[in-house]
């Protein structure tokens, strides 16, 4: 059996153990081949449909897919009163969830190919037509080909489908660990400088709101670092920790006046509820959008 068929049989399809090894590879290959033929055949069929027919297909598929996930969620899971040997943690649709998610991943992988094709086509055109700044496109294409070659080679070597050589190993390590990861880190570190310039603009005192924002931010920033504790408890000598149960009002105020306590109060009592309220709003909005998409009421991009 070819290594590719072996890979397909091992990682994509879990065929019954009762089948012989050769039979499993054969079935796996046939299934993959069949899927390709089906997809390749389906695309021209869909292209020939008139827009209204195409829309009807999309509406039906969207509704059925949504119905499947909704039914899986809402149907009771415990069927032991009818089928005593049934698994009480899942209903009859649950086992199909993972394959459905695999389908989504496959669609994503196909789209990645499409995206990469678009990117390469654009930059090839830039180079061939010598458009402005075409040198950047050359860099991109060279980097793309080099990285893809070493990545694929290294992955195949890790799966023992091709021989692993020090050249591949070292080359991949230089490109990935010592170049790509470091460039990522460099981009990430830029954020520190951007935060500084953005914070400068945000904290300029132009209105009452900006003043409140700046004051609160200063308290929180100092309160959550050791400087806050140093100022409050060492320099000012404020008492640490919660006040005793029988303490008078003044003692209670002093116990609550430390910058770390105030910063914690701002974060947990003011900030957290507001964030939760926004999250609720976003969640409800997402659910409403999902309903509109499921029932094909959304006409934006569908």
């Amino acid at each position: 059996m070819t290594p590719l068929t072996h890979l397909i049989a091992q990682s994509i399809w879990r065929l019954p153990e009762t089948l012989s090894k050769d039979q499993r590879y054969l079935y796996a290959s046939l299934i993959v081949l069949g899927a390709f033929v089906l997809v390749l055949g389906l695309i021209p069929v869909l292209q020939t449909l008139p827009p209204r027919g195409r829309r009807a297909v999309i509406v039906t598929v969207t509704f059925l897919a949504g119905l499947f996930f909704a039914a899986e969620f809402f149907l009771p899971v415990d069927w032991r009163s009818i089928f005593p040997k049934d698994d009480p943690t899942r209903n009859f649709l649950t086992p199909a969830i993972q394959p459905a998610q695999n389908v989504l991943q496959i669609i994503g992988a196909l789209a990645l190919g499409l995206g990469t094709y678009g990117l390469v086509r654009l930059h090839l055109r830039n180079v061939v037509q010598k458009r402005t700044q075409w040198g950047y496109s050359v860099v991109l294409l060279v980097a793309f080909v080099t990285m893809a070659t070493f990545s694929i080679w290294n992955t195949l070597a890790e799966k023992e489908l091709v021989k692993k050589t020090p050249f591949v190993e070292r080359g991949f390590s230089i490109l990935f660990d010592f170049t790509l990861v470091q460039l990522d880190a460099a981009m990430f570190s830029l954020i520190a400088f951007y935060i500084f310039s953005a914070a400068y603009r945000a904290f300029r005192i132009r209105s009452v709101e900006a003043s409140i924002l700046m004051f609160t931010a200063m308290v929180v920033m100092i309160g959550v670092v050791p400087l806050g504790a140093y100022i409050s408890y060492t320099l000012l000598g404020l008492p640490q920790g919660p006040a005793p149960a029988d303490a008078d009002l003044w003692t209670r105020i002093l116990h609550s006046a430390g910058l770390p306590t105030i910063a914690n109060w701002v974060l947990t009592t003011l900030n957290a509820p507001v964030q939760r309220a926004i999250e609720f709003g976003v969640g409800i909005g997402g659910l409403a959008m999902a309903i509109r998409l499921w029932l094909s009421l959304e006409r934006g991009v569908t």
Partner: protein
Amino acid sequence: MTYQHAQDNWFAAFVIGFIALAVLINILRARVGAQLYIRRIPGLDAIDEAIGRSTELGRPVTMIPGLTSFGVVAVQALTIFKYITQQIARFATPMRLLTGDPTVFAVAQEAIYDAYNEAGRPDLYDADNIRFLSDRQFAFASGVAGLIQRERVAASFMFGEFFAESLIFAETGNMVGAIQIAGTTSFTQVPFFVAACDYTIIGDEFYATSAYLSREPVLLGSLVGQDIAKLFFALTAVGGAIIASIAGTDAPIIKLLGQPGGWDAFFGGGK
């Protein structure tokens, strides 16, 4: 692997059903002609202003859905971009849509093509203007920042799901003097956008955008349904706080709503 089901907490399932019903009933109301009010959102009013500035300067408009993978957030972002493209098409303003997700890229190509078609200018559509840059966060960020700098964009629209790269986009846009309008569901990125952009759409305003721009009855109705659901959550939160303050967190009603297994657990059954 374990999956969540309605039976885990019937109250949560009831809430989902309630929201769905509120949304659908109000969509029907809007369809039969009920007049629904939507408040002004300044950030969305500024979209036309930003497009106008780009047109005057002859510099491109960028649209960035971030690293949003294909889902409801991406659909909403593309709906907004479709509207913006329809406006852009009227003045033949150059545009770039930059995405970090290949699935969004494929759908974006179709959506933008439709937008130019609907605006009566299919000749202006150029597939190269919709670009998939990379699905790696900072490779995508550097690609976007580079394009903003090189092409000196005049307006930048960022709608979708953003992570740490949000500030890189917003600050780079700020440096080249672009008018920037951002809207995101990622509340951790809202402060960065507020600090660096001219207008920011916060939280569920993001989902109100398409209704605001198009005034379609279906979308307006859905928005009213969402508001009813929010009112329900607010009342539940206030009611819960009052009950927990008076009767404690062990009160039967709080157990009923919050305990795993929901009503099953409350009545002594459950899993």
